[in-house]
């Protein structure tokens, strides 16, 4: 599979749903005049911040306006236009909150930065909130740990309630809620794709490497992003090979109805959608009686499961634990159970830490263990891990082709420089969103750099019965 094909790795959905490519920001069109009730609803949503979440309330009260967030923001790095300053974006609702909810704001107004809500600004709200990639880099460097992505998400959530979520995003949510995957693929299509992957692996190794589907009682239930099955499937093949080598092919399963951890409710700010998208996966995990939910190479999917759904106890206590497939594989590599022929991956390879894995979940060493084991020339890009720069397509932006120019020239600018500095010919990113953004970025700037996943590299180099894959034409 070449870069051109993998550009669709967020999925067919993104291709299907993208509206005509324009240079206009995501708002594109002026939102219709909103009604009085809608305006009140928006105001009430801002006032409701008083009831939590705790972080949001604190962020309303305590920004010292030191400008550190702008210095470390990938968007502001790409273009220092005023509207890209994270602190000003957050002021969209902070000023209104102050006006209506603080004694000082009511009494002193602009003296304390309070401003009233103006429905005419909503178009700007859409544009501004959909030009933040939610990478949380600002929070890493902010002396107070203020996470502007939380405020961005709140703005998006308010817009969503008013029906102002950009069409490209809303379609992904709708398809996912209807079909349980962002590609809109049927169980039959999924099974056909799996059969194809098993054939591929047979061609590569001359033996059967199985990918079990819908097996009740399997120990591990693997949930990748659907792109890792349908569009850019080497990662799933890689994981299947790991199970095979360990003699555990009968210990894992995928589900023909739940094969996409992607959950755009996180990006539109709609908590109800996020839960509705998540619920069938937890139910399926229970139905399959798995002991471990093995999340694939999808940053935000893992974050929702591990850092949000589980600790917030959306569905009570879970009868299974949640880990990531990179943790699982890295553990077996460290224990010496997997062997590789590094010469299969002789080109220089670097790793891009997806924000949702690195900063938000602390999965940083595991992908490096896998890449170091399977690649001859692994190179770090700097800064990395928790301090890595965003690919420029976070928070769902990479699915929005109506802002392609913005992503290629502004939000992805720092990442482009970073990748080129390494001299790598392959960038591994454990995230479908990052992969789509990076593929487009590499193509747009004609770098010739290949973009793929982590287990993809493993798949090409892992030894089965002492032999690595006979490389097929991907």
């Amino acid at each position, binding site marked *: 599979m070449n870069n051109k094909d993998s550009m669709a790795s967020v999925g067919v959905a993104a291709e299907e749903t993208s509206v005509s490519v324009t240079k206009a920001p995501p708002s594109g069109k002026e939102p219709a005049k909103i009604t009085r009730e809608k305006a009140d609803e928006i105001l009430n949503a801002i006032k409701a911040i008083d009831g939590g979440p705790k972080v949001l309330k604190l962020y309303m009260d305590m920004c010292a306006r*030191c400008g*550190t967030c702008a210095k470390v923001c990938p968007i*502001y790095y790409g273009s220092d236009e005023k509207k890209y300053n994270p602190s000003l974006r957050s002021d969209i609702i902070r000023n209104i909150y102050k006006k209506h909810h603080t004694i000082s704001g009511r009494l002193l107004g602009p003296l304390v*930065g309070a401003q009233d809500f103006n429905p005419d600004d909503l178009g700007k709200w859409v544009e501004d909130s959909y030009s933040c990639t939610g990478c949380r880099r600002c929070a890493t*460097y902010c002396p107070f740990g203020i996470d502007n992505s939380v405020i961005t998400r709140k703005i998006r959530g308010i817009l969503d309630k008013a029906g102002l979520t950009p069409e490209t995003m809303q379609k992904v949510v709708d398809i996912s809620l209807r079909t349980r995957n962002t590609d809109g693929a049927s169980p039959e299509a999924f099974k056909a794709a799996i059969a194809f992957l098993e054939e591929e692996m047979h061609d590569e190794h001359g033996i059967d490497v199985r990918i079990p589907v819908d097996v009740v009682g399997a120990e591990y239930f693997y949930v990748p992003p659907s792109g890792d099955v349908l569009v850019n499937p080497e990662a799933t093949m890689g994981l299947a090979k790991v199970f095979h080598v360990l003699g555990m092919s009968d210990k894992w399963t995928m589900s023909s109805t739940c094969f996409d951890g992607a959950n755009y409710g996180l990006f539109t700010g709609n908590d109800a959608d996020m839960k509705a998208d998540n619920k069938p996966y937890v139910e399926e995990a229970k139905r399959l009686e798995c002991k471990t939910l093995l999340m694939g190479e999808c940053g935000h999917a893992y974050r929702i499961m591990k850092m949000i759904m589980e600790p*917030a106890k959306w569905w009570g206590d879970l009868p299974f634990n949640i880990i990531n497939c990179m943790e699982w594989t890295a553990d077996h590599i460290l224990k010496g159970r997997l062997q590789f022929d590094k010469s299969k991956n002789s080109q220089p390879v670097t790793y891009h830490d997806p924000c949702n894995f690195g900063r938000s979940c602390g999965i940083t060493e595991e992908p490096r263990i896998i890449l170091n084991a399977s690649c001859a020339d692994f190179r770090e890009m700097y800064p990395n891990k*928790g301090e890595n720069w965003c690919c420029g397509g976070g928070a769902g932006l990479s699915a929005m082709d109506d802002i392609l120019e913005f992503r290629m020239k502004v939000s992805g600018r720092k990442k482009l420089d970073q990748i080129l500095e390494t001299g790598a010919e392959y960038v591994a990113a454990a995230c479908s969103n990052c992969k789509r953004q990076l593929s487009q970025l590499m193509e747009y700037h004609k770098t010739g750099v290949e973009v793929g996943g982590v287990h993809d590299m493993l798949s090409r180099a892992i030894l089965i019965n002492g032999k690595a894959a006979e490389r097929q034409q991907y």
Partner: protein
Amino acid sequence: MDSFSFIIGGILPYVVVPVFLAGMIYRFRSWLKAPQPGKMTLFPAGGSPFKEVLAETLFFPSLFKGDRVLWVFAWFFHITLALVFVGHIRVFSTMIDGMLMKFGMTSDGIDSMSSISGGAAGILLLATGILLFVRRLIIPRVREITGIPDFLAPLLIIAIIVTGDWIRFTGHFELEQTRVWTASLLTFSPIIPADGMFLLHILLAQALIAFIPFSKILHFGGIFFTQALIKRS
């Protein structure tokens, strides 16, 4: 004693202190009360959250990584502010003098130490305060997010520092006056020092104290909450 100084030194303290306490209690309570579903952890994490929050509060390591120049200004400004705050205990009570005397220091020795360290702190605080303000004016990314309150707060603080430095560096200010004033406030029979610059200094300081719970200076309380949330693993 004219009525003007009576208002500043004899009435305002009874307004400002309750406003400050009530405001801060209100803030802290509302922060404690708000629920936080899900985790906000930022990695790398996994050490002791208590130690990490303490480190953030004392040394600003995140800012150190993010903006080295600002760190130099901000850290020296805040650490000096903390020292000046501690130094001001001497202004209000003889407690510190008593302690130091137990360690064998003479009254003159304490005075000259206070004069050197307090003087140095007063200069450093003014210098870093001005540097922070100038930075705000000249760096576009900071200038463009600076609103009226972001000008008012530093100007107020700089004015307090200037009046404080004035008192320290122009002639000798007898601390006995302020100690009497403090004691008299506690017995609700205020005796107010008759010194114009001192009155201006405490007027501005009281304005700042009353302003804190309603301003961005709240960051000095909020930091414990926000940092704790991102440091816990």
